C-alpha cells in the first residue's frame, strides 16, 4: 500500500520523471474527429524511409501534421531522426529518387449504427534521396 501511494503521488506530481510516469497512453486522443497516419512514398509507392539515405530538401523538424492529431507520432519522430542523421553533405550529389512524406487523414462517419471510414492524403514534405 505504501508503494502504491508513493508511486501514484510521485507520478501525479512529477509526471514523466524516471521512474515515475502517469502512463497517459492515448489519454489525449479522445474527442478528435480525424487522425493522421504518416506514409513515406516514392513514386506513389509506400516505402520504409530507412531504406533511403543522403536526404536533401526535407526539414526533419517540420514533418508533423500541422493541424490534425496524429497518434503515431513516434513513427514520425523515428523518421525525422533518421533523415536528420542521414542528410546529404554539400559535396555529395543529389539523390535520384523523389521521396514524399505525407499523411493519410482518416475520419469516421457514424450514421445509423454503422461507421464509414473516409480518407484523404496531405503532403507535408518532398525531397530527394538515394536508395541504400
Amino acid at each position, binding site marked *: 500500500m505504501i508503494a502504491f501511494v508513493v508511486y501514484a503521488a510521485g507520478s501525479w506530481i512529477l509526471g514523466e520523471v*524516471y521512474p515515475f510516469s502517469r502512463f497517459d497512453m492515448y489519454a489525449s486522443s479522445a474527442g478528435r474527429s480525424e487522425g493522421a497516419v504518416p506514409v513515406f512514398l516514392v513514386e506513389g509507392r509506400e516505402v520504409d524511409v530507412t531504406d533511403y539515405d543522403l536526404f536533401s530538401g526535407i526539414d526533419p523538424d517540420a514533418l508533423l501534421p500541422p493541424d490534425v492529431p496524429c497518434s503515431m507520432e513516434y513513427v514520425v519522430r523515428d523518421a525525422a531522426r533518421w533523415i536528420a542523421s542521414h542528410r546529404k553533405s554539400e559535396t555529395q550529389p543529389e539523390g535520384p529518387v523523389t521521396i514524399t512524406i505525407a499523411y493519410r487523414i482518416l475520419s469516421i462517419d457514424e450514421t445509423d449504427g454503422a461507421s464509414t471510414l473516409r480518407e484523404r492524403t496531405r503532403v507535408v514534405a518532398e525531397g530527394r534521396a538515394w536508395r541504400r
Partner: protein
Amino acid sequence: MNGGPPPRASTISSTVAIPGSSRWARRAFFVALLFAGIAAAMNVRHAGSTWVIFGAFAVYVAAIALHARRLVPAITGAVAFALLGLSWWVDPDVHHAKLLPAAALGAWVAAWIVARAMRRDPVVAEIIAREAACGVVAAAYVGAGIAKLAASGLAWVTSSNLALLAAERAIIGPDWLRSIRLEVARTPWLCTALAAASLAIELAGVVFLLPRARRVYAIAAVLMHLGVAVLLGYVYAPWMVLIVALAWASVPPAIPRRPRTDLP
C-alpha cells in the same frame, strides 16, 4: 511427554526457510524481470545502453539463480535500475513498455533494503519487497485509467476514439490484421465496449494490492494487452510478463514464527 505427539518445532521452523513453491515463484519473478529487461532493451535505439541494460539484468538474475545471499541481489538490482534510468537520459523518448518493470524493480530493491535495514527476517523482507513491486504495478494501471479520465472524461469511451485509433493502424501490418482492425473500427458498439472494458480494467488496478485477487486481475490485464496488441499494434510484453509473474509469485506468505516451546 511420553506418549504425546512429537514436538512440532521442526515443522514450524520449516516455514522460516523459503518453501519450494515460493522459491520457484521468486525465480519466476526475476526471470520475468529479465524478459522485461530484454524487451525493454530492444526498444532502446542506442546499442550501447541496450547491452548495458541486458548485462545488468543478466547479472541480477544470475545472482538470484545462484542463490546469492545478502546484498548481491539488491546491489545488482540497484545497478540494473540505475542503468535503466541512464537509458532514459540517453534516449529521451518515453518508452512506457520498459518503464513499469524498471519502476517495479526499483520498488523491490528499495523495499528490500529498508526491510533488511530494519532487521526484518530475510523471508519477510522478500515478501515486503514483492508487495512493494505489486503496489507500483497497481499504481501504474490506476494511473493510466485516471490519466484518460482527467484528459477527456468519458469521451475516451463514448467517442469514436478507439475506432479512429484502430482505423489508423488498419493501414499498416499484414492483411489479416488490417481486416480485423477495419472491422472493429466499423463497429461502433464494439469499439465503445472495448474502450469501456479497458478503462474499467485499468481503474480496477487497485485490486492488485490484494494477493487473492491478483491472478484474476492479471488474466484480465493480459487480455487487455492482447487486445491492444491486435488492434493498435503495441505489444506490452514486459507488462504482461511482469504482472503474471507477480500474480503467480504471490503464494501465501511463509511468515517466520518463533518455535513454540509450550507444546506437550
